[in-house]
């Protein structure tokens, strides 16, 4: 990989080694040494055993690195990791770049970028869509926002994660684009459950509906993954309901701030809120099928309901 040569002298760090952040960091580790930090020391130890350079504090990671990736649950956590007590700020200096891969709040991201600019640090937002599996496979989609010249300087490193990136414009636009994509995916998932519940209760088999929908105009990335395993109780992507609710709340808030109605996405968000209340926030997305089963008083099986 010729591009690697350009980035060899750049020191890269990764903060936040959760399901997504961890997978993205491992992807980087395939082509270079990286510094890593997470509040869970046992996770850092695992990464060190696999060849990463462990750091014991955020300021020391920030001092050691030119480019610092960060992937945390919320933008508030990102602000805290940068400007909070024992945050990165003490180790940051002019010319460094932070790449925020959190599924964050675009407005808060712009505020963080403004505060970082005061100390000469640039921020690029580069959240992802495609889940940990896509991250491992190197096929994950990355939506990038930030000043174009800054984006160009970090682009060779972003490419190490996946070649599927889109530059979306100013700071925060990567986060905005991800929330839009997420909202579409969430709506696709629930309409897939809802319509198939109706078909199942009417007497169609899930496997037949799966074939028809996935060859037809009802097809979506959600139907493609959900329907083949719905009857047999198989899993799609592990993703906690509380995180989905968080993402959809951010999308709703953007709608309110810019004055977009969001009728359907809000209905879907309310339904996920209900699911999170009834099934628990740490249940994963696939469990939402139980809500649709309960609401329609059916139980999905491979064979169609007897009429």
């Amino acid at each position, binding site marked *: 990989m010729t591009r690697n040569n350009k980035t060899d002298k750049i020191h890269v760090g990764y903060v936040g080694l959760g399901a997504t952040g961890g997978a993205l960091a491992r992807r980087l580790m395939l082509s270079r040494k990286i510094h890593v930090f997470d509040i869970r020391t046992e996770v850092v130890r695992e990464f060190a055993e696999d060849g990463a350079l462990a750091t014991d504090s955020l300021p020391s990671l920030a001092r050691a690195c030119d480019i610092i990736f960060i992937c945390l649950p919320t933008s508030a956590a990102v602000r805290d990791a940068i400007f909070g007590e024992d945050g990165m700020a003490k180790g940051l200096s002019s010319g460094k770049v932070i790449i925020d891969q959190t599924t964050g709040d675009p407005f808060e991201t712009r505020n963080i970028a403004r505060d970082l600019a005061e100390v000469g640090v640039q921020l690029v937002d580069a959240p992802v869509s495609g889940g940990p599996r896509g991250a491992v496979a190197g096929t994950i989609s990355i939506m990038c926002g930030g000043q174009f010249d800054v984006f160009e300087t970090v682009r060779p490193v972003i490419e190490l994660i996946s070649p599927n990136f889109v530059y979306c414009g100013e700071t925060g636009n990567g986060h905005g684009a991800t929330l839009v994509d997420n909202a579409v995916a969430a709506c696709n998932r629930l309409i897939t459950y809802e319509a198939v519940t109706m078909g199942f209760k009417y007497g169609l088999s899930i496997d037949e509906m799966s074939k028809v929908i996935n060859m037809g105009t009802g097809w979506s990335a959600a139907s493609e993954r959900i329907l083949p395993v719905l009857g047999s109780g198989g899993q799609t992507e592990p993703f906690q309901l509380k995180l989905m609710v968080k993402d959809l709340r951010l999308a709703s808030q953007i709608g309110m701030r810019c004055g977009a*109605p969001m*009728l359907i996405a809000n209905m879907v968000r309310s339904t996920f809120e209900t699911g999170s209340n009834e099934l628990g926030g740490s249940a994963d997305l696939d469990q939402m099928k139980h809500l649709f089963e309960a609401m329609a008083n059916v139980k999905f099986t491979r064979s169609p309901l007897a009429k």
Partner: protein
Amino acid sequence: MQIGYVGLGAMGGALARRLLAERSLTVWDLNRDAVVALEGLGASAAPSAAELARRCDVVLLCLPRSSDVRQLIFGSTGLADGLAPGKLVIDQTSGIPGETRSLARQLAAQGARMIDAPVSGGVSGAAAGTITIMTSGPDDAYEQALPVLRSISPNIFRCGRRVGDAQAMKLVNNAMSVSCRLATLEIVAMGKKMGLSLETMTDVINKGSGRNRTSNVMLRTMVDGKPSLSNFALSLMLKDVNQAIELGMECGSPMAITNIVRGLLQIGVNTLGDNPQLEEVLGLIESMAATRIVEDRSTA
């Protein structure tokens, strides 16, 4: 006790006039015309918010948004400059509970108190002295506010000891009120389209289990061909419903129905022209159903 009022818009102006009927009042507003109108009724004008706070023991305010309240209090020549220890701010804004709590905490650091006391009942209720006042805050601030609030209306409901709970109550009420309004209009549009007369539906609904304030006031007014007395910007109701939904998100309540209402109000704000009034959502509901609830709009 010297009393001041800041924010002399449709609602704040009406509440200030009501106070002025019983007490001497100092006023301030960015809008000079609104100040002059109150001066004409005997109020004295302060040159700035800070100066009003220096002259008064109790300062009431009613602004469009909590962000305006923050600016008024802590902006340059803001109220905070004149709020000596022991003085009280009563926020009548339909504001954000958490934001008001945070303002109250900041004021407490300089020894000043703040409670919330939003109202429900419109300009006419304020003028008649019958408006509903919701208020919440700690005992000492509540006792200090009570005689002033009684000069506005005797209908005072204490909603809690925590600042902001009254504003939360107001959001609960407004989200419910506007959801009933849209549901009522939507269903009446269906009834009208399938052939029932507005008069029949209004009579029956108001004698039946579907009755509510919209059926009782708005539908009746339309049947009687009288002009509406309601005066409330659709954008302000949208703001209230948005704030109610934010409360739902904070505490994890789905709000499925309110969210749909929010979407429809947003469509109304986007499509009904320049600064539409709340009652103009009628036009949106009619257009969605391709029917007319009121045939002759000049009488509505």
